[in-house]
């Protein structure tokens, strides 16, 4: 049986009357790499902060390793590595001091791994945090988050500030290494190609709700992008079963739809058209269909 690491149940949270999370349920098991995607203000960071106990669950429950992160912060945080979006680190510390300081909280700290990562990132340990660039801060923060080999690694926008090479080669390798050890990674990102590349599970958040969640391959195979040709012109997108987003005009439309292709094909034929071409939708297309403008257009239609 899969070991549940994170279990969020009907979690809701508002800030000054604005709903940030709305009955969110979320589960992650050991060995998963879980990507959280969503537009700005979708609630990704709020959800991650609840997992760390930085926010108190007002409605619903949050359990990490079966513990409440607010009531038992030591029990949870000693097993978690976290890289914050703000990359907030004590500015007056040198990089080596930051590592030693973080090491003191984690008996499982792996000094050789820390040195290896410092070398990989070419970070000067004698430099002060305030002298580091944004990307270098992210790298220092990442080392501090992973060097104790945490059971759960939480990364909030890990790519922010990292260059393409570091992002693709090093970050991916770190995340993959954590997952291969049977540990769990949850990360949020705006970069959908990154989520597709790194994660095996994906959760799409939209306006504080979980729009969809599941194994990445299942999610992708559950959505298709089809090119549809109709016999007549349409000024407005035609109403089609399971269609989420439509682009185009006149007789030819490009449609992102869910469900089976057969069901969609029947719907198209009923409107006097045919499916010319069909393929699995990319995560970006699904995201735009579920959360973006196209989605809203489809809903309006």
């Amino acid at each position, binding site marked *: 049986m899969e070991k549940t690491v994170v279990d969020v149940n009907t979690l809701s949270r508002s800030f000054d009357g604005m709903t940030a999370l709305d009955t969110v349920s979320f589960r992650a098991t050991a060995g998963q790499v879980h990507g959280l995607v969503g537009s700005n203000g979708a609630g990704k960071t709020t959800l991650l902060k609840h997992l*760390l*106990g*930085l*926010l*108190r669950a007002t409605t619903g429950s949050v359990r990490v390793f079966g513990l409440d992160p*607010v*009531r*038992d*912060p*030591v029990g*949870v*945080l*000693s097993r*978690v590595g*976290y890289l*914050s979006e*703000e990359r*907030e*680190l*004590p*500015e*007056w510390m040198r990089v080596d*001091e930051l590592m*030693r*300081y*973080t*090491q*003191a*909280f*984690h008996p499982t*700290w792996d000094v050789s791994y820390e040195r290896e990562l410092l070398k990989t990132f070419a970070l000067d340990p004698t430099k002060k945090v*305030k002298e580091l660039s944004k990307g270098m801060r992210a790298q220092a923060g990442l080392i501090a988050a992973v060097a104790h080999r945490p059971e759960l690694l939480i990364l909030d926008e890990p790519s922010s500030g990292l260059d393409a090479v570091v992002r693709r080669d090093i970050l991916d390798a770190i995340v993959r290494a954590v997952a291969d050890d049977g540990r769990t990674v949850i990360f949020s990102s705006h970069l959908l190609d990154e989520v597709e590349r790194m994660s095996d599970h994906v959760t799409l958040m939209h306006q504080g709700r979980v729009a969809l969640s599941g194994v990445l391959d299942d999610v992708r195979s559950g959505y298709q992008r089809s090119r549809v040709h109709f016999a007549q012109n349409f000024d407005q997108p035609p109403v089609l079963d399971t269609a989420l987003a439509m682009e185009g005009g006149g007789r030819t439309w490009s449609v992102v739809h869910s469900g089976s292709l057969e069901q969609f094909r029947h719907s198209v034929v009923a409107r006097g058209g045919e499916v010319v071409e069909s393929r699995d939708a990319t995560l970006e297309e699904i995201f735009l269909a579920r959360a973006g403008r196209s989605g809203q257009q489809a809903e309006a239609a």
Partner: protein
Amino acid sequence: MTMRSPVVALLWEQWQLTRVEAAQRVGVSIVAASVALRLGEVGPTVAFGILMVLHSMFWLSISKLTGGRFLDGYKPGFPLQLLYTRPVPTVVFVGVAMAYDAISCVVLYLVSAALVGFAFDQPLPLFSVAGWIVTFHLVCTCLQWASRNRVVQWAGMIVTCLPLYLTLRNRVASPLHVEFSLAENVMLILIGVVSFAVAVAGVARQRHGGASVATPRTAGPVASPEWLVSLFSFSCPTSSATRALVWLELRSSGMPVLAIGLGLAMLIFMLFAIGIAIAPLRPYAVLSAVISVPAMLWLFGGNALGIRHKQGRSYFSSFEATQPYGTAQLTGLRILVRSACMLVALIAVGVSVWASSSLVNEWVPWLMNGKEVSPGVLRARNALVAEILEKPGYQHFARMVVVAIVVALIIASRATFTALRARHPRRVNIGVGSLLFYGLALVLLAQAEQHGIVSTLLFNQIQSATNWIVAAVLILATTYLVWRSLAERLLTPRQVLSVVVMSAAFGAACLTLMGLPSVRPEGFPTAIFLERLLAPALLALMLFVLASWSLNRIRHM
């Protein structure tokens, strides 16, 4: 709201950022001045002094915009650097900011002084000091904004602000009356104009890259200059989280506080020693001895829990919040380390003042304006010697316990207030406002009772009720906090027990110092007796528990 011009927009922005402080300032100054006016003959002078201090100094909201308060992550230089990219000439935004700062303080002073003076039928100087307040503010803001060099700022402060203060002091006549000569008024205007011009020139350099810019940044828990933090470099222990945290506290605030205390101690002694030969330095020496302890506590005793401020937002660093360490332990450790370092620093300053005061004998005769001055430092020293010889040993021990715990309580209360205000700003403001309002009502009632408007019986009943209310609030709040902390597993029973023991020790030490007979003279009301008996211990208990509770609230928002 429609902004019809950049100036209106600038004024609106500054009003938004300073309005809460303005309201608090008026409230505090009215209550404090009202209390002072009840003192009797010296009341008006003391009230005037309080109003001047509250409205001419410590108006720091604008500098808070950098994300740092004075010596609390504060970066010198022009704080409103976001204005650099707006299509407004430097002279306009600097002028608006300086004018707002100076004029708002004058208005607040005038309102407070007029209200208090009217209520107590004791006219306080109004427009005669307005010009002085404006000039003082222009000089201060000029020094803070025109240069990013701290040495220039501090030297400038000493060179300009102290003479301004002495000028005012020399013009305060008895009965209370302040009047500047025409020449002095012209001089004040000239100083103001020069300050404005220098500020504009300094900010223009920063705006156009001629000088480094005070970029906004996150103000951390470091309550001291960064070079001082870097000065004490010793390795972080990795053997335990507690040791690492002690290292962090010592490096970031403890050692700098100690160093500043030692530096101040040496400076005081040097000023007294040089004062033997150079008589004009003597007022500075005495002033440094008098203000050193409160200044240390004020400047370096705040924000021990490390709440950060960034452009109007207050929060607890996620780096610190996600360290696997208990909130109560973290609170205790931070307050303990800061208190211990502060205590050692204060002892160093105290020893220095003690040693320096012996040099005062060498100053005699000390003539100022043709009159011989008898320094209060010498009288205080003699009084202290007499008391040390007179009191038994256990009283001295009790005094030491009280002083140590009072320092810890001051640091804990300030840290708690900062954390609570960061988490619940509106509620804290309402709470503080209500307390101020209640205090003011009591003072006014006392005044009315003195003039026979309110009967003595009614006034006594209200006083007695107030005592009962305070006692009840203290007991209920402490019980609730302890219960909640245990229920939320914030504190363990063992931690509660140690806090209770410490608070009881404090209460016992306070009672020892007060002496039991003076605590309850014959026929003394029970409520007040109970309050006196329990208040110190309960207050200490409540504050120590509240400190952990407040950090918990901001760590887990």
